[in-house]
């Protein structure tokens, strides 16, 4: 795919299908630490195949050439398939839940904001509410920035998951298995 017309992404998204066994995540995280690859976010969950899990790793593009990341991942015996996803040709989603401090006079503004971003109210207390929001990670970033003014008590994000867009051949499976 052409890299000339659009800006070089600041991160890589690597999607790895791995055997669903204990210790596999530790193998991957120790590989990243050992090779100096900086993880921005990491999401792990089983797939439709009970023997496989999908690990979606967002890697700082400055800390590692993507080629080395995928090749080193392939060297792990329990890694079955590694796919690079270009942020420009993939769909990315992330989930955030946040508990916000609300005073009586700001409650309305916060609820408006949640509604504009199409978030959900999960829990309401006297001085705080808990909301959830899913969407593109950059939308979550914007929401988080706007909430900051009201006082964030606690916030958790899942890390992004991604799949290739269907209309373009974004899926570039790295061919050839590592030794």
């Amino acid at each position, binding site marked *: 795919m052409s890299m000339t017309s659009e800006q070089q992404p600041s991160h890589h998204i690597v999607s790895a299908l791995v055997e669903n066994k204990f210790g596999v995540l530790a193998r991957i995280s120790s590989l990243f630490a050992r090779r100096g690859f900086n993880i921005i976010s990491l999401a792990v969950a089983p797939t439709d195949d009970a023997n496989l899990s999908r690990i979606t790793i967002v890697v700082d593009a400055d800390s590692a050439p993507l080629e*080395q990341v995928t*090749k080193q991942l*392939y060297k792990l015996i329990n890694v079955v398939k590694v796919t690079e996803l270009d942020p420009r040709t993939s769909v990315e989603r992330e989930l955030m839940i946040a508990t916000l401090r609300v005073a009586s006079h700001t409650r309305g503004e916060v609820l408006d904001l949640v509604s504009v971003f199409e978030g959900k109210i999960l829990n309401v207390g006297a001085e705080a509410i808990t909301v959830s929001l899913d969407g593109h990670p950059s939308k979550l970033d914007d929401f988080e920035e706007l909430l900051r003014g009201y006082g964030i008590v606690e916030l958790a994000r899942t890390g992004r998951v991604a799949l290739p867009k269907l209309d373009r051949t974004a899926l570039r499976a790295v061919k050839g298995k590592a*030794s």
Partner: protein
Amino acid sequence: MKLTGAQALIKCLEMESVEVAFGLPGGCILPLYDPLLDSPIRHILVRHEQGAGHMAEGYAHVTGRPGVAIVTSGPAATNLVTPLCDAYMDSIPMVAITGQVPTTAIGTDAFQECDTVGITRSVTKHNELVMDAQDLPRIVREAFHIATTGRPGPVLIDVPKDVLQNTMEWYWPSDSEMLEGIPGYRPNTKGHPRMIREAARMILAAERPVLYAGGGILKARAAEALRELAELTNIHVVTTLMARGAFPDSHRLALGMPGMHGNAVAVTSMQKADLLIALGSRFDDRVTGKVSAFAPDAKIIHVDIDPAEQGKVRRPDVPIVGDCRQVIEEIVREIRNLLADMKPADTSAWHQRISGWQELYPYTYEQSEPGEALKPQYCLETLRDSCPTDTILVSGVGQHQMWASQYWRFDNPYTWVNSGGLGTMGFAVPAAIGAKVGQPDKVVWAVDGDGCFQMTAQELVTASIEKIPVKIGILNNSYLGMVRQWQEMFYDERYSEVYLSPEVPDFVKWAEAMGCVGIRVDSPEEVQPAIDKANEIDDRPVVVDFRTDSREKVFPMVPAGMANDAIVLSPGQDPSALRK
């Protein structure tokens, strides 16, 4: 058939044709040592678990078959970490079996418990904790397959005590059943045909080509293929520290070892080349010097079975992922086809330049004057000329290792055993023992330093008791010699903590105490008789203590981090001709 886990594990090793295992029993591995009594597998009882690991490596180096080490849990497993890392760095096939506390005790900080799988994760190609005796045959088959295929390496199997004691129903997985268990492991051995054609064309078009042979040649049993390629194309070959013996040193196209202490011709021919054909070599920093200044005009063909080596250090123009032997044979076939209707580029000017350098820049040292201390290079030359050509030479790490690689004449593959990547001091004695076990009919000499020897010498007790007649030549300069050399050259001769002692230990007495013959050599006249005497002894190990000149340094030398063009030659050699 019902078996205990221990019986099953021994049977698995027999199914994998294991003939010898190096090990030392203890609490958690105890159940395994009982059925071992009834097995034809020879067990060699070491004196320290690190010794077991290096013996397994030495055995694997000279036989090409996986070395096996068996130790218990906790401290025994941690003692194995150094040899595992050594084997990982040098791609040595090895299977380590460690005991573990019972599954019910894992995670409780039980006696002699440690997280073996966690600790060894980054120094093994793969490792596995066995939680069910029923899994043992599958895991052992996978371990041997993974250790010996693709880029070889060490695999560790951690077996809790109760898994050894529980019963299982015996089975032996077929190839396809075994492969089903490791869906993520399918090494690619066949090179891409388009890349192979491209490589063949590039080789014939090059005017200043060099074959850069690494340890992968030996792993792939590709020495003959390499020779065919070199002779067909009339291209010179450098053999890295890990590839010594992969191409005969006495061949007209041999340039010997490149790198930090390589000879000036090997180093310079790579620097000036217009094409480097890297075969199972990995552009190690000890070979490239400063990477940005390495072989600046050269195009790169890089053949390696490990895709992650392609472009890791230097971006290849033609990357070929595959087994070195298969790929070289394909390249040879392709070149023969091309030669039917084309002529290769004229390399005669390049050959002339190389032979000019060869005349000017041999390895050289000053012979000692009468009454002066013995030169280590002289000891090595005499030893070389007094041994059969298929002698297996083993070394530790440091000055003696570099001199051994420089001054020996390696004309046969699998006759050089050393610790290249990790640089493990203390490697030589146990690795020599493992090598002698693997090749009992060959003469095995270890050249060691006095610093190295003191790290693992106790394994000579193992060698004496087990009747493994290795020969050890200590180049004893009473110093940590390589560190001393760096302090002399780069730290203003400020010698910090490098002086050992010329008096203690008494190596002859120490050798005798361990059941070996000990010989001390102080002067040049004593060198030949001592070596002759050592070569005559075949019923026990021999230790020869060569008392050598501590001022002697290894040259040439490319100072660390510098460009290879900054090579420092032996005193008296004029570098100007290298710049032409």
